[in-house]
């Protein structure tokens, strides 16, 4: 035997141990690692245009009015707290590298992430999201049958777990494409998507199969490649669907090449019934509709006339106030409880004495798993995204939906990643 044999055999050792060594780095010397990975993430973000790291300017628009949402999508009652404190202008780079390099332990995963796979009627289906987002009862139609959902625990040598489930129709949606799943012993319905492209010949078939005129509102739109999001009303959405329906004969385009022209209008689609967030429904200057509304990308040749009609309608009817309100808190973790985190934000205040200590409740798995897994440690710098804070209790945050690792630097330009 040669030393090279051992090196080669190492390649095939169980991967959970390989990942564990990587994760342990994060646990043992978390602070240093955050900087390091943050640097790598920020660097790659610039180089590769990756989405995993986001740079957030410190000065946010003041949060005015109401309309905040809690983690269950319910409107907060009353006025939102308006933060008038002066910040120190430092730049925050936030990244969630765990999404790429690490896997959450089994017990930290939402049930539809744990049991993300099932077979129904001879076909395989996958969970549409992995963060425990459920489908309201109102969208659930008749029961279709039963199945067994499955998932693997990568921490336990890919151990297979199974859980019985009932399969339901999503009202008006073809169960050959999407179904709702209710796990035995769990509340709530989860959207599952078939693990194969739809056999669509025309746009009309896609619209009908997904009941798009009912399940999708085209109310958030971008013009060209601009980053400003505009709003449209539900009446506008109905008119736009009429235009798309008038193209129901538009043929599906099998090839990717030849349709890669500039975007004319791009709708951002979030549909509870379809279980999708931030999906794209866009038309381009070559007369194509391009969408990943089913996760698989489809191209339909709707024609340049239809694209012009859509563009003109959007330009005539858009209003300027559609940005989804997402607020953030950046600061140092000072205490970690069973279901909350305390964050002191004096590090980003012009006068550190203005700093406040926020109690962030871990109502969402995307926050709570940092506590449950032990990844989060006191002293770390984090950014929390939330849907608003009630003016009645400005230090209590009940709407947190994301937690990122944050790196605070004097300016965006001066700091060169290693």
């Amino acid at each position, binding site marked *: 035997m040669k030393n090279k044999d*051992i090196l080669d055999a190492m390649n095939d050792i169980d991967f959970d141990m390989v990942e564990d060594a990587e994760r342990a780095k994060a646990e043992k010397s978390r602070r*240093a690692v955050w900087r390091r990975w943050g640097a*790598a*993430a920020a660097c790659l973000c610039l180089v590769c245009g990756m989405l995993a790291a986001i740079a957030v300017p410190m000065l946010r628009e003041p949060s005015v009015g109401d309309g905040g949402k809690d983690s269950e999508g319910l409107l907060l009652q009353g006025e939102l707290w308006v933060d008038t404190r002066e910040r120190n202008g430092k730049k925050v780079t936030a990244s969630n590298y765990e999404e790429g390099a690490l896997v959450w332990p089994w017990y930290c995963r939402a049930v539809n992430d744990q049991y993300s796979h099932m077979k129904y009627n001879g076909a395989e289906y996958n969970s549409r999201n992995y963060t425990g987002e459920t489908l309201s009862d109102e969208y659930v139609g008749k029961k279709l049958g039963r199945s067994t959902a499955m998932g*693997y625990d990568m921490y336990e040598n890919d151990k297979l777990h199974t859980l019985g489930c009932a399969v339901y129709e999503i009202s008006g949606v073809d169960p050959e494409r999407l179904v709702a799943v209710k796990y035995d012993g769990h509340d709530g319905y989860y959207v599952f998507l078939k693990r194969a492209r739809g056999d669509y010949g025309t746009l009309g078939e896609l619209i009908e199969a997904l009941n798009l005129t009912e399940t999708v509102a085209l109310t958030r739109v971008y013009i060209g490649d601009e980053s400003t999001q505009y709003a449209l009303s539900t009446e506008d959405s109905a008119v736009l669907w009429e235009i798309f329906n008038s193209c129901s004969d538009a043929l599906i385009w099998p090839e990717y090449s030849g349709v890669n022209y500039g975007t004319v209008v791009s709708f951002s689609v979030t549909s509870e019934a379809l279980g999708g967030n931030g999906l794209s429904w866009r038309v381009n200057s070559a007369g194509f509709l391009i969408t990943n509304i089913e996760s698989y990308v489809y191209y339909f040749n709707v024609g340049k006339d239809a694209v012009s009609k859509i563009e003109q309608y959007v330009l005539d009817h858009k209003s300027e106030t559609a940005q989804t309100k997402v607020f953030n808190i950046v600061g140092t973790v000072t205490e970690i409880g069973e279901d909350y985190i305390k964050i002191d934000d004096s590090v980003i205040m012009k006068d550190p004495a203005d700093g406040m200590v926020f109690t962030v409740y871990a109502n969402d798995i995307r926050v709570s798993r940092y506590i449950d897994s032990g990844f989060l440690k006191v002293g770390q710098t984090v950014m929390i995204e939330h849907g608003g804070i009630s003016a009645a209790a400005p230090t209590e945050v009940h709407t947190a939906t994301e937690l990122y690792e944050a790196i605070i630097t004097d300016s965006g330009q001066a700091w060169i990643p290693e």
Partner: protein
Amino acid sequence: MTDEQIVNLYWERSEQAIRETEKAYGRYFHHIARGILGDDEDAKEIVNDTYLKAWNSIPPERPNPLRAFLGRVTRQLAINRVELNSAQKRGGGEYVAVLDELGECISDGEEDMSSSLALREVLNQFLRSLPNEARRVFIKRYWYMLSIRDIAEEYGMSESRVKSQLMRTRQKLRIKLEHEGFDV
């Protein structure tokens, strides 16, 4: 997007598959390749080669988890590259030192008939029997091929502690291999 969804995209021959792979694991693969090669440019090439390998092997493969499958591919491609580089007397990161150290576990003898499958099983058993720290340090050195200094820094250990930890583990491995009937 999950591994299964990404693998589906490969099966559908959608170029989106590569973009989604890059989005999900690009940084991790770069981290693996960079550690072995010690060079960013080489690492970028290896990561691109990994995507090509993925494109060419899925289908027929349906790897699950994808990260493990392609992580191993990245490591193997990086090792192949470092062997080529060292044949050409260029750079080479930690490869030569790592090979040298593993020589302590065996006498650099003849090719024998011991199957790589059996060796893998013994390594798995052996690594699982180790205390966490020893296992992690060993994997950092002989899977990720990081330098002693990098390992010390990442785990908050002194370099001498990493070295002595590795030495003890190699000695244990030698005994284990002998015990299992390997020609050491």
